[in-house]
């Protein structure tokens, strides 16, 4: 395919002969993709933290003395909002108590008959499932008391959820804006070649033949921009992880290399795709203008 080889050569021409324009476009793409990546990583970390906080939310239901946990267990199991439930027998509870007391564990042996009730440890899917669950459990005659982590964790969870929602909105906005900026930049860049494109049409080049180098160029600039952005993000994120580890050990941050790798690959793909699509749309306008006879 001679045409394909010509297209590749012309792509290189476009990139090198207008390298000023190319560099500006590349830099712009890199910039907005960097912001996009930043917002994404932020949102991902927010979600991660929430899942960690939510995973730590445990509701404990203590039965009345002499009652078993069967009734409560049934109720709990039938609820779709419960992630997991564990039955704690009085014996197990005693074991735990003993372990907690450590060197004063002997005191437990003084108790004689095990005074501890049956209990359940319930994990719910989401924070907002706690309140209804607690209400339902309290109604049961066999249940003595229901304990859960209390206002503080709930409040933290609410904050996290709000932040996650915000970061989600930010992410969407950033995505929109990134695409817009890349499109505009490529469009403006191709605008400066419109006469040239129209001349090509006049001397019998097909729109596809004319577009191909621009499309390749767009892809290369998009992918290149994404690559730059990824490098920037990588170094920013590494130092963020480092900083968090050394000063905020109690904060959860994603360090899963595979996940991050996948994300970066996705970003790269997104950059390349946006690049060629925007180029294609932009150049199409001028080729079809050249094709119209006035």
């Amino acid at each position, binding site marked *: *395919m*001679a*045409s394909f*080889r*010509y297209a590749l050569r012309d792509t290189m*021409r476009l990139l090198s*002969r207008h390298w000023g324009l190319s560099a500006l476009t590349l830099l712009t793409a890199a910039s907005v993709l960097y912001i996009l990546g930043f917002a994404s990583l932020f949102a991902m970390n927010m979600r991660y933290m929430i899942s960690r906080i939510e995973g730590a939310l445990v509701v404990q239901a203590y039965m009345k003395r002499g009652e078993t946990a069967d009734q409560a267990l049934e109720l709990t199991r039938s609820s779709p909002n419960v992630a997991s439930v564990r039955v704690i027998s009085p014996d197990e509870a005693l074991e735990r108590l003993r372990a907690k007391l450590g060197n004063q564990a002997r005191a437990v042996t003084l108790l004689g008959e095990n005074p501890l009730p049956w209990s359940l440890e319930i994990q719910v899917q989401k924070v907002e499932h706690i309140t209804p669950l607690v209400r339902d459990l309290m109604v049961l005659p066999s249940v003595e008391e229901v304990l859960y982590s209390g206002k503080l964790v709930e409040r933290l969870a609410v904050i996290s959820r709000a932040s996650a929602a915000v970061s989600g909105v930010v992410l969407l906005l950033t995505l929109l804006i990134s695409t817009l900026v890349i499109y505009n930049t490529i469009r403006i860049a191709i605008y400066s070649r419109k006469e*040239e494109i129209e*001349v*090509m*049409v*006049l*001397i*019998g*080049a*097909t*729109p596809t*033949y004319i577009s191909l180098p621009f499309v390749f160029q767009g892809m290369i600039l998009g992918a290149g921009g994404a690559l730059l952005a990824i490098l920037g993000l990588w170094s920013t994120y590494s130092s963020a992880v480092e900083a968090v580890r050394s000063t905020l050990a109690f904060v959860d941050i994603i360090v899963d290399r595979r996940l991050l790798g996948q994300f970066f690959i996705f970003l790269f793909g997104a950059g390349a795709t946006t690049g060629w699509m925007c180029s294609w749309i932009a150049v199409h306008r001028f080729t079809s203008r050249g*094709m119209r*006879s*006035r």
Partner: protein
Amino acid sequence: MDIRLSGVTKIFEPDIVALEDVYLSVDSGEFLYLVGMTGSGKTTLLRLISREYAPTRGQISVGDRNLRKLRQSELPYYRREVGVVFQDFKLLQNLTVFENVAFVLEAMGIPPKLVEGRANEVIDQVGLWRRRFLKPPQLSGGEQQRVAIARAMVNSPSVFLADEPTGNLDMRTSEEIMRLLLSINAAGTTVIVATHDQHLVDSYRQRLVELHNGRTKRDERRGRYFVDGEL
């Protein structure tokens, strides 16, 4: 290919009548001068034939193609059969002489080896061999004009439209170009040359059509150049 215009009128918004009710019939392999004062409609006529413009009224057919019915997807292939020397050259400013000429062949999907041979041959014919790696802004007016001629003829089109191909050339170079056009014509290509060059028209007598205010005023077998009531 033969060219037939019947009742062609071209009006530009809002009311500039560039051509009015033109009938013109050019047979396959004919050579035709198109003369007329500035603004008489020569370029418009050529642009209608290359389908850069569409006529306001009337029919144009080239070979067995009715230009009104030409689909957009066929347009590039039609234009490859019509070589045009534009009055303002329309060269690609970022490409060298060689690349400008080679581009036409490349866009047709012809392999690099063949492209190179043919492009160099034509560049040599118009006498630009030593300038072939310069770009248009580095060329003199006459040199640019010859690049435009080379580009229009490189793919051996069936119809050759030259709009003022010697406007920036001295007499001697004009004559060389004229002989080139005649040799193209001798090979069977239909040639239309819009020109103001009296010397050329009178030295190489050919069929001559004169436009005046968008209407055909003369159509002579071996006409002489004088415009609008001279003599």
